[in-house]
């Protein structure tokens, strides 16, 4: 008898065995439903994380984890953005000129190694953050910290800024164990951007006083936290938290079947449709999507024409764009999302007016103007940006504007955007920190985004410039919100920005959880606040 049929027969037997094993596997595998139970909290999210060093953390997943590992002077609870609450600081006082802030620290806070948290750690952490010149440093460039005594810290800014307490809630202002971080190559010196080498250590271990500690971190699969046994506050409900890198579609399927202690962070808009009604949802409109048209004639004679900008603004079907996002999305009224004080009322949402758009083009002598629209070819919060860009293209065409689409990989888009040579672009935008006034520092003429749009002070309407300055100069929160609304109305009349829609971040949680609230403060969900509804 030949060897080959024998081989084939053996293969057949092996295959049958394998098939049986697979069937057995299928029959006994309970799915992930049961796996997320016990004392483990599972968080499903599509990873956006580069670093877990508070001085470098900037992306969504990193912020969520770092907020759980590092305490900050102040914090926000849940989705309430009205006023920062005590965390490491029991109280604080702002000087009348809004330049000096004095924080009194709690005395029982300790790091995971048992050493007490003092003013020296706070000073080191904040000064290191500023001098690292990493992504989050941009919000603290004007900030210096010093100690008065072991439990009192004074934070000083050169320009009046009543929002410093809000900035000090952000995960990147997390307080690190200065002794430990210095031993691992950290420095808060002026040369920290070049001399600090602690990031490598802080990406592998935590040096904070927060409710959780870093157990393991793999940027492509999972990030595991374990409860800090020396945490000074209430004991965390879960001894272990696993943040899993999971595709959005898979998150939807997983949450549809979950019976354990599990939540998902990337299901929003249309991805929420069809989910079981037993799942909990918490959301806040904290993101806006906008078009930016370059105001520099050297870049584009078309987009730098104010009449063209107004025509595009009038041509868009804002309600139709919002529908593409599904869920709680709504047409934009201005650049401040509704989650934050200072947003324009929904009644002021923009409307399509094709006749006006055509008239504006005719008056300006623009016949079938053509422009290229660049956007990152990504899916953001469950929405393919290409779909939205196509809708804009179609709307503009009805007014006689020809738009050609130019999708780019994210890194190429960011590179081109930074170069300031893009005629027209489309992207989502969130706040650097949860204060709407921070947008002025980014969008006002000559500032960050404006500079890459060719919108200089010289090219801007003087009223817009003055309105932005008024926002900055107003120290009273209520009055500042009013100033912000006035500034946005002027932006809608004369600026290169066209806000299209607001979209929300959402936390979808299993029924077994409590306290799974979406936090527009910057960390998506407060892991330590998540508990079990079945005690």
């Amino acid at each position, binding site marked *: 008898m030949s060897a080959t049929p024998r081989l*084939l027969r053996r293969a057949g037997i092996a295959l049958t065995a394998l098939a049986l094993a697979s069937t057995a596997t299928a029959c006994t*595998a309970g799915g992930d439903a049961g796996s997320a139970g016990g004392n483990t909290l599972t968080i499903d999210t599509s990873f956006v994380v580069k670093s877990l060093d508070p001085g470098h953390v900037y992306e969504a997943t990193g912020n969520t984890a770092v907020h759980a590992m590092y305490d900050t002077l102040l914090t926000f609870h849940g989705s309430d953005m009205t006023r920062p609450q005590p965390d490491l600081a029991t109280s604080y006082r702002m000087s009348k000129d809004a330049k000096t802030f004095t924080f009194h620290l709690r005395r029982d806070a300790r790091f995971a190694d048992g050493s007490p948290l003092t003013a020296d750690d706070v000073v080191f952490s904040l000064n290191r953050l500023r001098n690292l010149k990493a992504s989050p440093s941009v919000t603290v460039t004007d900030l210096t910290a010093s100690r008065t005594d072991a439990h009192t810290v004074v934070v000083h800014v050169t320009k009046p800024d009543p929002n410093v307490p809000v900035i000090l809630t952000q995960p990147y202002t997390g307080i690190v164990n200065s002794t430990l971080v210095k031993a691992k190559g950290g420095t808060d010196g002026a040369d920290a951007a*070049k001399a600090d080498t602690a990031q490598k250590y802080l990406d592998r271990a935590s040096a904070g006083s927060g409710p959780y500690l870093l157990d393991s971190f793999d940027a492509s*699969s999972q990030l595991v936290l374990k409860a800090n046994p020396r945490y000074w506050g209430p004991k965390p409900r879960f001894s272990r938290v696993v943040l899993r890198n999971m595709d959005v579609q898979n998150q939807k399927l997983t949450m549809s079947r979950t019976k354990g202690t599990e939540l998902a962070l990337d299901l929003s808009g249309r991805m929420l449709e069809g989910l079981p009604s037993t799942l909990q949802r918490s959301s806040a409109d904290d993101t806006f999507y906008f078009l930016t048209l370059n105001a520099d004639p050297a870049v584009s004679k078309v987009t730098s024409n104010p009449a063209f900008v107004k025509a595009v603004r009038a041509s868009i079907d804002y309600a139709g764009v919002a529908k593409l996002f599904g869920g709680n999305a709504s047409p934009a009224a201005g650049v401040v999302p509704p989650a934050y004080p200072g947003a324009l009322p929904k009644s002021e949402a923009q409307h399509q007016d094709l006749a006006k758009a055509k008239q504006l083009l005719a008056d300006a002598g623009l016949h079938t103007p053509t422009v290229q629209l660049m956007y990152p070819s990504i899916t953001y919060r469950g929405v393919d940006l290409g779909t939205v860009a196509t809708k804009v293209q179609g709307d503009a065409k009805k007014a006689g504007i020809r738009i050609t689409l130019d999708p780019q990989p994210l*890194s190429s888009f960011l590179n081109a955007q930074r170069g300031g040579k893009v005629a027209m672009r489309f992207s989502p935008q969130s706040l650097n920190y949860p204060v709407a006034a921070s947008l002025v520092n980014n969008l006002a003429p000559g500032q960050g985004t404006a500079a890459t749009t060719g919108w200089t002070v010289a090219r801007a309407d003087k009223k817009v410039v003055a309105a932005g300055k008024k926002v900055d100069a107003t120290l009273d929160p209520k009055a500042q919100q009013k100033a912000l609304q006035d500034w946005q109305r002027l932006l809608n009349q004369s600026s290169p920005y066209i806000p299209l829609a607001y979209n929300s971040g959402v936390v979808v949680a299993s029924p077994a959880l409590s306290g799974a609230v979406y936090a527009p403060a910057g960390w998506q969900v407060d892991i330590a606040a998540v508990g079990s509804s079945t005690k």
Partner: protein
Amino acid sequence: MTATTIGAPAAGRRRVPSLVRFLAKRVAITLGLLWGVTVVTFALVHVVPGDAATANLSEQALNDPSVVAAYRAKWGLDQPIYLQYLHYLGNLLHGDLGTSQQTGRPVLTDLLQYVPATLELAVPSMILALFIGTAVGMFAAVRHGRASDQVVRAGSLLGLSTPPFWLSLVVLYLFFYLLGVSPSGGRLSPQFAPPPSVTGLYTVDTALAGQWAATWDAVQHLVLPVLVLTCLTVATLIRFVRSAMLEVLQQDYIRAAYAKGLPRRTVLGRHLLRAGLVPVITVSGLAFASLLSGTVLVENIFGWPGVGQYAYRSATGLDLPSILGVSLFVALVYTVVNLLVDLLYGLIDPRIRLS
């Protein structure tokens, strides 16, 4: 007889050096190929729009020339491209693939972590695909022109034209969501800690650590991604096997074998299968190399931290050392697999061995 006696030792003497020559030639080609890969990858990364500093530094840092300069100096980006390349090549000769800008770890360490994850998917997928593809392809060839052949051909075509991400979502929907008989993704369920790394294969490492529940869990997590990869590979194999077997079936020696009254299974097993396997091995080698190179979409949907995901993150972050590391790995996989395929030819077909 005399000629044979004289010639035999001479042939024996030639045989060993010829094998050595063959292997030496292949190693030289492989080294040349790897060198070529470094040149092309290096050039491509510098030609595409984008800049490593822009991709990795903050806006504020980019506005500070001293920070940008320090970053460029740290990663050697301040040197002319040819010097960067020579520096890289020098380190490569010492086994240093550089440090990843994304993970901050040596690229070799990253690869040693991610390759086993991909290997854990690729090996069972390939073994299953090989058996199923060969059996079904042979069956279709033997049943040439009949309804069963048409069904197999249609199925194979369907498999070839099915996008991997779509199939992944379908099996997830079916086996995880509807039937609830499979985990949704990842290598282990959240309640299990990754085992101490010995081989990097979770199924093996958990068993070595005596964590049997975790071993079973790791096996369960393998099922769906392996199923998808097997389906995709089987579709290719079936077509090749069928086509190769059809060609062999028309050979005179097959008819002669039947005419001699040999049993059908002997004809099929000894004559048909063996002769038809050579082209199948070629395509199997390529399919295996493709599986080992990482299947980005499948890994992404199943949250599988393999080479594919690593390559994707490296490319989007313009992480040159990682991109080069992955490229070299892929090139090495293809050349080694091709070498093995060539050696297998000789084992299976005596004509090739003799030539």
